[in-house]
């Protein structure tokens, strides 16, 4: 059976610099793939290539058997791909409820309706209620997003990415800036996502990575340096040299 996501020789150059160089990997349906690497290794850039925010200089991205290399961002979401952002990307001046409603509407018919009152759409409201309750933000639904605590915003961030009921979820540092308790909570939620959602996750938090991923890729200077299962990667000397060393440095620096 063809893989859900096939990345072939993906590269992008900025001026003379290759931010992502000849990246090739596959992602099978239901897999959990973790992407690690030092700062600046090109992980978010790779995500931007996969979601379409950036166009590659060469290479191919095939999703569900379709070549999506040059497809627009919104078209990929409609196909079943979704992402969360490392730097929280919500609708800061709207309420939590409105954020949820807007996110849910994105992939449902009716998003071009010009007459009915949006915030009183019963169908959307009940779905939004379920979504917000599951991330424990239902009580805060009338609060404006800017007034939420950072941890709550990160939960909403992930909630919004799931709103389109994606088949492939790209998580960019989901536990970025969270306390250990909050990180553990996020880890549990990702683990509980079920086999219908395939996950590709960028993370620096090794507990999160090993807790969620079955397979891990190490990205270094834009290239895939190491690829393997959790145990293989844990034992790999290159990983220890490249990543664990700089990982210690980054946790020390905060």
């Amino acid at each position, binding site marked *: 059976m063809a893989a859900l996501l096939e990345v072939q020789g993906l590269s992008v150059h900025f001026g003379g610099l290759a931010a992502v160089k000849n990246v090739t990997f596959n992602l099978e349906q239901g897999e959990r793939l973790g992407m690690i690497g030092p700062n600046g290794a090109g992980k978010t850039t790779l995500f931007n290539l996969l979601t379409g925010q950036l166009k590659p200089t060469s290479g191919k991205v095939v999703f569900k058997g379709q070549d999506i290399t040059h497809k627009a961002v*919104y078209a990929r979401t409609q196909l079943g791909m979704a992402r969360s952002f490392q730097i929280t990307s919500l609708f800061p001046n709207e309420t939590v409820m409105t954020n949820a409603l807007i996110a849910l509407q994105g992939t449902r018919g009716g998003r071009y309706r010009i007459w009915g009152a949006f915030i009183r759409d019963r169908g959307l409201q009940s779905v939004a209620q379920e979504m917000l309750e599951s991330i424990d933000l239902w009580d805060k639904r009338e609060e404006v997003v800017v007034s939420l605590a950072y941890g709550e915003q990160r939960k909403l961030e992930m909630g919004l990415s799931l709103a389109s009921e994606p088949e492939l979820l790209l998580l960019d540092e989901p536990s970025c800036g969270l306390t250990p308790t909050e990180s553990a909570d996020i880890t549990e939620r990702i683990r509980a996502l079920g086999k219908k959602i395939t996950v590709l996750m960028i993370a620096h938090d090794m507990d999160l990575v090993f807790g969620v991923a079955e397979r891990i890729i190490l990205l270094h200077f834009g290239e895939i340096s190491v690829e393997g299962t959790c145990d293989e990667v844990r034992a790999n000397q290159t990983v220890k040299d490249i990543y664990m060393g700089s990982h210690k440095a980054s946790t020390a620096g905060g």
Partner: protein
Amino acid sequence: MATQVRPAELFVGRLMRKAVAAPPVAVERRDAAALLKAWLPAVVILLLLLVLPSVVPSYIQSLVTKMMIFALFGVSMNILWGYGGIPTFGHAAYFGFGGYVCGILIIHGGVSNFWLNLVLVMVFTALLGAGLGIPAFRVYGVGASDNPIYFLLVTLAFGELLVRVAISARSLTGGSTGMSGIPYPDLGLPITINSHSFYFLVLLIVAVCLFVIHRLVNSHYGYALRGIHDNERRMQALGYNTWLYKYTSYIIAGIFGGVAGALFAYFGGVMVPGNMGMAMTDIVFLIVILGSASVYFGPVIGAVLVVGVEYLASVYVPERWPLIMAILIVVVIMVIPQGVGVLLFDLWRRVFRGRAA
């Protein structure tokens, strides 16, 4: 509601089924009282406007007619600026174009029926918007914060360009002196329109348009537009074709601007090329900013103020209106950038709801 359900299951599969069979869950219901409270100010103003002509001299009635026309002009522009975050500096082009099309249809095209004329004005402004929108949005960039400058300048240039076209197409438009002699509308009914009945016609058209626009900005489409304003990148990631929303909203705003322009043409009987240009665009921006872009009725307040001040200027310091306008602009932008509407809205909530905004 169930509490110990694992998060995952709520998202996958069940969502869609639930949405279809959704029982009314504990969400906001608008009862009659809340509805009345929300619409009360608008109803009161409507009633006042209906009564107005019987109690004020005719020059005030005329002034209020002009205020209503510019209120529509401002609200139409605010679809783009306040809701979409799209800085369009060529909106006057649609206003003036609508007025010119209206006049040309009557004088050269023999289309004297008001309703047919209005429909044609809407069609032609839609075509103009569709045509200009394509190159204009080429220079937009994702998210207005990135590159508003180019879009702003290009729409500005388009407006000025149309002014030059109007100046040269002398046979159609009357050239730089403009087109005059546009008569009051012929409704196709056995009544002749004079300034008194014209007031009510404008009230009707403007009220209907404002109602329609209100529905639009509060609809699914409208909230998508707001989302694009707030965070276009995220909207794209959520599956929205943001270009399409921006492009269509540009056309829609242009249509309503054109309607206001047609009413303006009937009002004054005259159209000049400058009606499509930078000065008029600046006026509509002043109207929107002064009244508050973040409040639906803001531009209405702005229109009342600006048209009022313009009238006073014409009485006391004729010929110096551009100076007065510049002073007004400076004061608004430097001192009360959020606009007067927000202040009034806060006041309203304090007085009538008894709680701080």
